């Protein structure tokens, strides 16, 4: 596999100019995640409205191009979606990064799927999968209010 399939333009662009890299005002859910092996960390902030729809989502943290791009694309995608949809999308994304050849979620538009599939290159780089999944695990932790910091070394 060519390294350029991992570092596609869209990833480089999101990595350089991450969307929603800020702290949501009046957030009502949040969670922290870290990758102790490389020192990367992320803090995800969520604001759900009364219908459990994502009114706003943002993140703070630092990391490599893959982790920043993944968090950036993730926050962009799930804004406006409902909590149950978000959980389904996260599990679809994690399934794709792990083993599935494509995304199956009915809650994603085709162009959204295309965007997410840009991250599929990390499958070929097992050491980098955690970079791509950290913010997604952290998002679930925020939604579930687990109050537990996500640690990539403690995930499957």
């Amino acid at each position: 596999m060519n390294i350029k399939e991992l570092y596609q333009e869209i990833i480089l662009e999101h990595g350089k100019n991450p969307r929603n890299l800020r702290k949501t005002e009046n957030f009502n859910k949040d969670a922290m995640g870290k990758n102790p092996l490389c020192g990367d960390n992320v803090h995800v902030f969520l604001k759900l409205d009364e219908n459990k729809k994502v009114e706003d989502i943002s993140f703070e943290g630092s990391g490599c191009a893959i982790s920043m791009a993944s968090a950036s694309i993730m926050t962009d995608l799930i804004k406006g979606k409902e909590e149950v949809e978000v959980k389904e999308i996260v599990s679809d994304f994690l399934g794709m990064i792990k083993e599935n050849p494509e995304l199956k979620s009915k809650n994603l538009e085709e162009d959204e799927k295309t965007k997410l599939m840009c991250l599929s290159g990390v499958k070929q780089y097992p050491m980098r999968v955690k970079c791509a999944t950290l913010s997604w695990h952290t998002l679930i932790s925020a939604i579930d209010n687990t109050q537990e910091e996500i640690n990539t070394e403690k995930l499957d």
Partner: protein
Amino acid sequence: MSISGIKKEFPIFSNKIHNNDLVYLDSANSSQKPQSVIDRVNEFYTNEFSNTGRSVHYLAVAATNLYENTRSSVQNYINAKDKNEIVFTKGATEAINLVANTFGQKYLEKGDEILITELEHHSNYVPWHFLRQSKGIKIEFAEINDDGEITLESIEKKINSKTKLIAITHLSNVTGAVLPVKEITELAHSKGIAVLVDGCQGAPHLKLDMQDIDCDFYAISCHKMYGPTGLGVLYAKKKWLEQLPPYQGGGGMINDVKKDSITYGDLPNKYEAGTMATAQVIAFDQSIKFLEKVGIESMIKHEQELIEYGQEILKRNNSVKLIGNPKNRAAVLSFTIEGVHPHDIATILDEDGVAIRAGHHCCQILHDKLGISASARASLGVYNTKEDLDQLNSSINNCKKIFNL
């Protein structure tokens, strides 16, 4: 043995990595192994295997002799006064833990201070932290200067009447700075303070003379010295090994065992409880022979030329920022590239067969001080060449290209 063409002694270099020649620049993490070391492990398990020190049969006696022979080789290589000052451990980490545990148990009280430096690897900090928690000792950090060095003055500044032990690295695994360990030891001893040197990086690259440095403890990692994994050496002055309590209890370290009393064995058995890493110890003798055949002076000269060449080309490369600028640098070139995270650098370099490390290199205190979360590190071994460093530079350029820098 001539250094040019020494790669041939290391079978790993005949492999291709992603269809490219391997450019191995991660020796500070762990070095590659010469064929002679690999063969020795194989030979021992194939034709000579036995446990040591327990039985009187032929194989046991032969294995014990081989095992003890490595102890003598290490003694000779590091110029220790006494063979029994060499203790085998499972690694340098265990060597430092052994000292923290036993020295801490016997000599440290609440309020006593251990002085370490901001350059220390976690393995020369965490064991002291355990004592901070269990005994209420304090840990002081000597501060680096702008060049990423630890000077004698920065140590002197932090010494006070409570300081009981100074634990310092010989060679920083991030900035590559060589510390003035002899001068620091002299200063410490003049104030009655013991000195432990973490020699993980020093031992593979510098000339070792324990009687000259005069430190009390010196920890060595054998797998960074062209030797097998699972093995370390603790050098400790005899007076300490005699005075300190045993570290682990078990077979081999005892003298007499009764229901109501136990006496411990003589040195070095007192500190080598249980079955040791016999094959590794025996094979490590070949690592020392390899280093002696290369010649320490030639190795140092070769690596010094490389480090100067590496510094030169990386300094010329725009957007590469070297970490530290020590006057006395050896074996390590850590750097960052503005706009590219070290993990991305490492992944992209790997595609060209260039193996470096990215992360905090077990030195979070130092990275915090430098205000960065991670760095990329190219570290040298005796097998590296100027061509390797040229490849590093050209792969860095490729990385900059991918990131549109």
